[in-house]
């Protein structure tokens, strides 16, 4: 049974060209069939021509699997995608599936898609109707905020980006003031600018806010408030005073044990019952409080992880310097503990951003909510796919950027121990 010699260094001259051409042939066959709908091996019986690429590719990969061939590129190829029969099959399947899925995706996203026009009737192709996104883009970004006033949202975000941008270039000393401005002054300035009602700006009620800008506003405020509350809760949970400790534990576990959607339901229907008759708290503020408290509980657990990881010597050293509880925590403990848990903090903030679409429960509409509204518009029925793919892309870019940034931050701040 030694018809074919085992692939080895001796027969490399014949086996490698044959193997490579077999693999290329199999990939070419799938490629041509997927892109041009032409079956190269159509002359064969249909069952055989269906599996032939797999068989050819498999034989090809077997032939080129030569250990220590001495050819560097071949060794790298074999090591990475062709280390044994099973891996060769996996490689072939993956390549085929990728090739097969490119043409339909390409068709839907670009080739058959419609980009120009103003109404659904302009969408004649089989692919995506990007006209839908184009026409509704303004709404997706700003919600029902009046068109004439949208410069206010733009200005607020421009100021934010400008201040953040400039703060990268100024000296360390000035940077402190920039950060103080961003944390303590800007949020309230920005919200005043967007809501209006004074300085000659027209008042825009929060029910009209929406779209992606609302996602940013809610995320920014929730992040701003949930962080200090989370730190305080974490310190409370580690406190030696029993009353404070158990109240903190109860608070944290209560929020962590329930889904956000029920918390939002609570803020919408149950919370008004707890206020004096006639008091009205804006929907947006109620939602903000709910999200902040909810995420603060998660933040507290992350921070607690950092606090627990610090060696006892740090506490003792701080105390021996005569520091009190608050100075010890602010100057010695927290800076180290927070640095340890940057990935956890980033994950919590990421979860917060991903949770913002849930505010549809109380009737506020950020990006996903606006798409839900647009797709039920009688003139634009059947546009769900375009809408959700667009929203998914937008959120993906934001969240992926955040996770990448946190990874970089972690690397930058990691100090050798």
């Amino acid at each position, binding site marked *: 049974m030694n018809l074919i010699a085992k692939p080895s260094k001796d027969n490399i001259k014949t086996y490698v060209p044959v193997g490579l051409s077999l693999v290329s042939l199999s990939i070419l066959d799938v490629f041509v069939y997927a892109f041009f709908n032409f079956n190269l091996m159509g002359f064969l019986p249909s069952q055989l021509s269906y599996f032939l690429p797999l068989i050819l590719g498999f034989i090809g990969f077997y032939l080129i699997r030569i250990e220590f061939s001495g050819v560097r590129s071949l060794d790298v190829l074999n*090591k*990475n*995608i062709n*280390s044994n029969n099973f*891996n060769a099959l*996996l*490689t072939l399947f*993956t*390549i085929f599936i990728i090739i097969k899925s490119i043409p339909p995706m390409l068709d839907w996203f670009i080739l058959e898609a419609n980009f120009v026009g103003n109404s659904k009737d302009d969408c004649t192709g089989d692919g995506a109707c990007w006209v839908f996104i184009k026409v509704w883009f303004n709404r997706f970004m700003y919600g029902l905020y009046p068109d004439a006033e949208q410069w206010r949202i733009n200005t607020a975000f421009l100021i934010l980006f400008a201040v953040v941008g400039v703060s990268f270039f100024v000296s360390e000393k000035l940077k402190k003031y920039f950060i103080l401005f961003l944390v303590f002054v800007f949020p309230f300035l920005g919200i005043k600018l967007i809501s209006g009602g004074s300085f000659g700006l027209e008042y825009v009620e929060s029910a009209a806010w929406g779209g992606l800008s609302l996602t940013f506003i809610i995320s920014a405020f929730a992040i701003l408030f949930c962080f200090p509350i989370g730190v305080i809760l974490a310190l409370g949970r580690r406190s*030696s*005073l*029993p*009353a*404070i400790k158990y*109240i903190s534990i109860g608070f944290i*576990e*209560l929020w*962590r*044990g*329930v*889904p956000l*959607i*029920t918390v939002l*339901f*609570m803020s919408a*229907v*149950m919370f*008004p*019952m*707890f*206020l*004096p*008759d006639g008091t009205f708290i804006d929907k947006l503020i109620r939602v903000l409080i709910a999200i902040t408290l909810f995420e603060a509980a998660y933040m507290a657990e992350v921070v607690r992880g950092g606090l627990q990881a610090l060696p006892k010597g740090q506490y003792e050293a701080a105390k021996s310097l005569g520091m*009190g509880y*608050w100075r010890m925590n602010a100057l010695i403990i927290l800076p180290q503990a927070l640095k340890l848990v940057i990935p956890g903090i980033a994950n919590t903030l*990421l979860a917060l*951003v*991903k*949770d*913002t*679409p*849930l505010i*549809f*429960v109380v009737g506020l509409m950020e990006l*996903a909510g606006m*798409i*839900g509204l647009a*797709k039920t518009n009688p003139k634009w029925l059947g546009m*769900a*796919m375009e809408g*959700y*793919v667009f*929203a*998914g892309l937008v*959120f*993906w870019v934001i*969240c*992926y950027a955040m*996770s990448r940034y946190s990874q970089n931050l972690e690397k930058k701040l990691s100090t050798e121990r």
Partner: protein
Amino acid sequence: MIFKKFNIENKKARDLIPQAITVLALLSVIIYFATNAQINMGNRGISFGFGFLNQEASFDITFSMIEYDGSHSYGRAFLVGLLNTILVSVIGIFFATIMGVVVGISRLSDNYLIAKVAEWYVEIFRNIPLILQIFFWYFAALRALPLPENGISFYDISFLTIKGWYVPKFIWTNFNIFLLSVIAAFIAIYFINSYATKQREQFGKQLPTTTISLATLIILPLITFLLLGVSLTFEYPVLKQLSPTVFTYAGGVSIIPELIALALALSMYTATFIAENVRAGILGVGKGQKEAAASIGLNKNQILKLVVMPQALRIIIPPTTNQYLNLTKNSSLAAAIAYPDIVLVFAGTALMQTGRAIEIISITMLTYLTLSISISIFMNWYNKKMAIKEK
């Protein structure tokens, strides 16, 4: 710093002040809320109480695992919602685990392509909000399915249509005997395994436990079919014409699209987190462990089964349980696509009808809380049991 001013040397007294302030503040908030709630409920003419749970619910639920219609009570509706939540969570956990393990191992594959594909799967599905994924599957992908009359057929026994997935229904006779045989098989497997462990530890003998266990699991139930009168028939869904243009399937079981979309999105989303846990767990087992195992002559499978997995599982299981809990809580997003889970049925419809916001929201939150706390108690127990016992 405030406390310095008091200059109280006695630590006990000094500790008392902040605690007393906190407790008092909390109490006053609670009392304030409670009084307001009492006044508000008085104004609306409702009194606090759970008596409404026995009243007739008079609304229908589209999907129920137990007998339910409008004439049943609110309590029964709550139960229907709870069971639906548990159903979708169990399905989600099952598939999320399988996919998570496969993707997690793939990320560590020495096949570059597979590792990259797995990595991008994680990066893509982890960074898109779950609610968007649910919307995508429900409003975009599943709506593209054909109408019942041209449903996608799987060998004519199962049909996938826009109205749901119709699968054959199992009709058992003497199901109880079958169930008992399965339980008996598991008990037998437990004893076989403990016997095998004893043999291994005392005499160093390796018994083929996996093969024996599988054989037991197959043979015992098979005997019930052959000897004890258990039988299983299928009721297949059949296309039925309701009116000239409206078709549906009769017979079989219909899996509603809400359930499919929700289970799909939940498992694909959670699988990314489980995959990361699995990867971290396997990476967390030191290289030295594998080398040591190889050097005493264990083969590749034995290394994986006896050395790597027991240690990796210790790292994998706690965060994965957390993910199961998250999945269960995330299943509450069902309300967004009208899958009748506990939030939609109880905190939605029942609340609108009765107006008993405080009672209903409290029950809903308590239900989830009970679930969470019981799982974390179990986890703490498990962690203690699994922790490395250092001597």
